[in-house]
């Protein structure tokens, strides 16, 4: 910088000027230092320490002195632990069952909002988005009442549809299975959680895709229209290809977020994971291992395995879709 050069050329400046030059030089470092200090303590150190902890056996009640080095034993133990594998399959199941429909609904919806209608674009978008900013705990409690077996409004609505004369032809087939024990029977827990997660996050994706659509030049659509393309054709041949970088990005966010799902399954299953642990995600298993069973070493190992899973899936996703996504952008 020019200032520091002139400072070096004339070393006998008055104190006040020198002080002024100094505060100018250190100011930017000072301004960004809070982040780095806090990150070192609460971000970086925990990660390194959890790596160390994952190689120990330790119950925190007995104090730091009782920590015992066991090498990879925690990891080896987890490889044989049926609950760990169940939590992995649960997490992947829910991540997929709630994640894929989010995007399948959000893309056409964003397209319809930005190309198909003239009015109420913002109120509709805001309505879809609202669940995203609402407390997951609050939402899960409301859904617990909605999913109630005897008096939950979902079952009551389904029963009405199955029995009412005007809708029985369509929904009558459901009657035998009603009422559905959504949160009590093991096979229903994952679908119930997935419905909730879908409901909470599809609106966020609608907004992401709307932002992506806004960057597509309108000339493309005009040209397609002149060439006689239908709406469906321009959706599949213009919108989808040009939206690909955004799809890649949004799906990445879904993968990372869904694999760490905690609040929703925790509340819906009362903190236990439900019948047969059918709703226990990896994040929940990690929490229970650490703070209910006080196996800090094993829990740290779970957190690293979860990190590995997130990293692997994100990189796989990048390998198959990232490059092609970037190509269309270039």
């Amino acid at each position, binding site marked *: 910088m020019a200032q520091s050069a002139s400072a070096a050329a004339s070393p006998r400046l008055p104190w006040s000027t020198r002080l002024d030059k100094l505060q100018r030089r250190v100011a*930017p470092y000072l301004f960004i230092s809070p982040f780095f200090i806090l990150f070192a303590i609460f*971000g970086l150190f925990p990660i390194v320490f959890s790596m160390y902890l994952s190689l120990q056996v330790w119950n925190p009640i007995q104090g730091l002195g009782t920590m015992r080095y066991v090498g990879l034993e925690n990891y080896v133990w987890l490889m044989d632990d049926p609950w760990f594998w169940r939590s992995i399959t649960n997490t992947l199941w829910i991540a997929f069952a709630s994640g894929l429909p989010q995007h399948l609904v959000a893309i056409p919806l964003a397209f319809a909002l930005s190309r198909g209608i003239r009015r109420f674009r913002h109120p509709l978008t805001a309505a879809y988005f609202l669940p995203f900013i609402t*407390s997951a705990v*609050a*939402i899960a409690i409301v859904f617990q009442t909605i999913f109630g077996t005897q008096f939950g409004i979902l079952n*009551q609505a389904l029963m009405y549809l199955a029995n009412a004369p005007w809708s029985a032809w369509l929904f009558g087939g459901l009657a035998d299975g009603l009422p559905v024990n959504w949160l009590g029977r093991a096979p229903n827990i994952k679908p119930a959680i997935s419905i909730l997660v879908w409901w909470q996050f599809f609106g966020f994706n609608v907004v992401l895709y709307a932002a992506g659509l806004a960057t597509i030049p309108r000339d493309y659509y005009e040209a397609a229209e002149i060439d006689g393309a239908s709406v469906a054709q321009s959706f599949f041949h213009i919108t989808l290809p040009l939206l690909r970088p*955004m799809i890649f990005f949004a799906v990445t966010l879904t993968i990372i977020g869904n694999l760490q799902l905690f609040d929703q399954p925790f509340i819906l299953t009362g903190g236990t994971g439900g019948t047969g642990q059918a709703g226990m995600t990896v994040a929940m298993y990690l*929490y229970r291992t650490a703070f209910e069973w006080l196996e800090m070493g094993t829990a740290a190992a779970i*957190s690293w395995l979860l990190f590995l899973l997130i990293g692997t899936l994100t990189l796989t996703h990048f390998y198959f879709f990232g490059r092609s996504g970037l190509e269309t952008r270039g």
Partner: protein
Amino acid sequence: MATRVVTDTRPWRSPRAGRNPVGTFLLYLVLCALALLTLFPFYWMFVLATHSQSAIFSAPPPLWFGSNLEHNMEALRAQLPFLRNIWNSIYIALMATVTTMFFCSLGGFAFAMYDFRFKKQLFAFVITSLLIPPLLGIIPYYLIIQFLGWLDQPRALWFPGMASAFGIFLMRQYVASSMPRDLLDAARIDGASEFRIYWSVALPIIRPGLATLGMLTFIGSWNNFLGPLIVISSREKYPIPLALRTLQGQIQTEWGATLLGTALAVLPLLIIFVLASRQVIEGLVAGSVKG
């Protein structure tokens, strides 16, 4: 930095779109049905908050407001120091919001306005730190809080996140796009110190961006569940999500009271969203997309 696209990207509608009233009507019907689907649970929550246990467990279910609100409020306060819990949430969220607004705008200002050695690397570091799953450090986080003697104290929840990477990133984008660098030199000629420039020149300019960050931080802190679940243990100190979890965890849950608590927990967010939905949505999208 957001590069402006030269081509016209205004939302485009086909000139044919208006010509099919039936199609347009059906489209609106589908869109509104979906909006009802997302809004119904909110409405339902407020409705049930005004009903007694027996009304909630009846068929057909009540679809309009009842008269049991006061009783539910009493039941709620009998089970929990609920006003205290609300205050805890407000306190933690306000502390988080004020400190985040200050430290993140300061950091974002530095990254946007100055040239200094290692700036690129340091900024890349900030961005990379965003990619770390928070669950990875959750156990050592607990141990540090314990070591500091902060267990069961509100500061355990707002202090560590004061200078968040997300906030610095958001503020850097905002400062870079709204504050001309000439202002920096002009203020220096007037003899202002660098901090003074940030405080008196930059802050007033970036006020809208700051408000967005403030709202996002408030919402995030208000909704945080895992953090308090781990470090807060006494009922007096519970923020709302944790208090709600206690209500729900009981064998004989009083649903009217529980849903009243839930409704009160969601109400501030609804107010923020009604007043500033555009800002909230744009802020969240800008923060995640502009990378």
